[in-house]
């Protein structure tokens, strides 16, 4: 639980003064050695507030590992990761947890708590933070489920009773529960049908615009890149080989990038 002082200071930080702040996410010269090979060999980029950025790259290029390093679940072998301007290697565990309350993470397969219903999953982060009456909590849970497009009858189901796409939406509702400033999404549209995927992208776009939400996602979905994303960061063989708006990246002369963007026309 947060003390009052912490909550107030966090609310204060949440006030978005434009232009006077460090990037929300900053990755600086990250190198990671896994299984005897350098998965990342000097990756650097920064995501400013309000931007929706996508990490793309072939399977095994370490997108998910990088995301785990950014949220502090793993440590890079070398290099530095800063969240909200704070170096993750230097913060205390308590400070790290305070930082973690300011972002939401959508895991690849949802990672919903299997002993709770969908509604309880969405309510869980809120219950840890503040005491709400039953009515307010119900209303809040309903809102979250509606925002991510889950039908109300799913609220009482357990995660094991949901389809893959539904589980993903429920997980997004949980990630949004505390009104995060920053959202990490690991493969958000994988497992959704194309219509649901585009709808999901639009919801994220509107939330990002209206909440000033910063989003960093990994994806394989070309449509997501064109619909949702402001900026694409391409990882290849441990390095960032292209970084910019999707149209510019698509024009880059690189074999992997060309075949990636060609896959839509031919496929």
């Amino acid at each position: 639980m947060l003390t009052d002082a912490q909550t107030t200071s966090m609310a204060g930080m949440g006030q978005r003064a434009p232009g006077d702040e460090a990037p929300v996410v900053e990755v600086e010269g990250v190198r990671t050695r896994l299984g005897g090979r350098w998965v990342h060999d000097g990756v650097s980029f920064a995501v400013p507030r309000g931007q929706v950025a996508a990490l793309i790259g072939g399977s095994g290029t370490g997108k998910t590992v990088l995301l785990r390093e950014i949220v502090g679940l793993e440590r890079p072998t070398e290099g530095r990761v800063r969240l909200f301007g704070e170096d993750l290697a230097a913060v205390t565990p308590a400070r790290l947890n305070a930082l973690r309350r300011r972002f939401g993470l959508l895991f690849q397969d949802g990672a919903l708590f299997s002993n709770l219903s969908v509604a309880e999953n969405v309510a869980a982060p809120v219950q840890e933070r503040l005491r709400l009456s039953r009515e307010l909590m119900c209303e809040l849970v309903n809102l979250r489920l509606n925002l991510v497009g889950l039908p109300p009858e799913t609220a009482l189901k357990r995660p094991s009773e949901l389809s893959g796409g539904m589980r993903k939406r429920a997980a997004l509702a949980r990630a949004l529960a505390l009104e995060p400033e920053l959202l990490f999404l690991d493969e958000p549209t994988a497992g959704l049908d194309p219509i649901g995927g585009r709808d999901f992208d639009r919801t994220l776009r509107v939330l990002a615009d209206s909440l000033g939400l910063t989003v960093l996602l990994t994806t394989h979905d070309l449509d997501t890149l064109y619909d949702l994303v402001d900026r694409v960061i391409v990882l290849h063989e441990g390095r960032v080989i292209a970084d910019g708006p999707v149209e510019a990246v698509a024009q880059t002369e690189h074999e992997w990038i060309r075949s990636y963007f060609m896959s839509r026309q031919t496929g």
Partner: protein
Amino acid sequence: MSVVPSCPPDGLTQADGAEPTTLQRETAPRHCWLTTEDDGAVLHLTGQWVLDHLPELDAALKQQRIDPLRPLTLDGSRLGRLDSAGANRLIAHLEGLGLPFPNLRLSGFNPQAETLIRLVACRRSACAGPPLRRRGMRHALGWHVFKLGRAVVSGLAFIGQTGQAVAELMARPALLRTRELTVQMEMVGLRAIPIIVLMNWLIGVVFAYLLGIQVQKFGANVFVVDGVGLAITRELAPLITAVLVAGRSGAAFTAHLGAMKVNQEIDAIAVLGLSPWQVLVLPRILAIVLMLPLLTAVADVAGILGAALVADWHLGVTPTTFFDRLQERLPMQTVVFGLVKAPVFALAIGLIACHNGFAVQRDARSVGLNTTATVVYSIVAVILIDAAFAVAYPEIK
């Protein structure tokens, strides 16, 4: 609209006919207050309309006397921060009063806040029913009765299917998965020997020591052999061994099969055209039925060795005397009786463990629940079966 005061004067709430209490005067202006204009009422919003302040926002809204019959304008010109939880509370409250969102006018909001309000208004559903349900007494009772009934039916079905698999195996012995069977025999039998020996040796030591104190009072030291031999071979060794195996191998069966179920591996076996019973269940049940009597025999030896040690040290009964008297006083029948119980215990443990493994739902929680259930039920079953044997063959030679 143009005549909006820069700060909320106290008198303004009275203009609406509301009686301002001290509470209202203190809290209401913090988040919202109401003014009347020529073309209807205006609800001015101020401060932080965010999740952290939700209870106060709710209270502040409930204090406003909003007339649903007059047009209402929302003024966001002094609004600090707005998030979806705050926007939702506002819209829900007004809707509850009979002022649906399309009838509201918005003024002075920054574009970001206005997009957010419109998104929330368009996505939220009026009343989706309570998503957090509390279970009543009747509901809980019915649920448990239904669950018990289902468990009985599925247990019987499991026994039936296992019986059918055994019949198939007898008709076609080639179906036997010898590799899996030997692996399981090693896991259940061989690897359990150290713990079984240690536990039963200790039980033998303790039992001989306590019994020794009693027989010493009568100077009948050598009678410790009669008591120890009977107790260990007939009751203690079979029971302790079965309980240990239930906790060790029973839990392992359930956890392994349950994790395979979660991973859809059992479905994969079925889709390959194999029977999960032949591949998974029968090797485990056969292994435990074959190994438990052997482990019990090991346990008998370990327990008696422990007792012989104490008899030598504590009671002055030399090993030669001890084993001579054991030969004389412990009939083979008693030892066999203890060993005959073992496969029956084993069958119960194996059936319970495999059934609970197959009954796992597709989530992590039920693996834990079913593993616990396996250990509890199989120990209960072992003790009940033991009681039935004791009643059926009460004579002790």
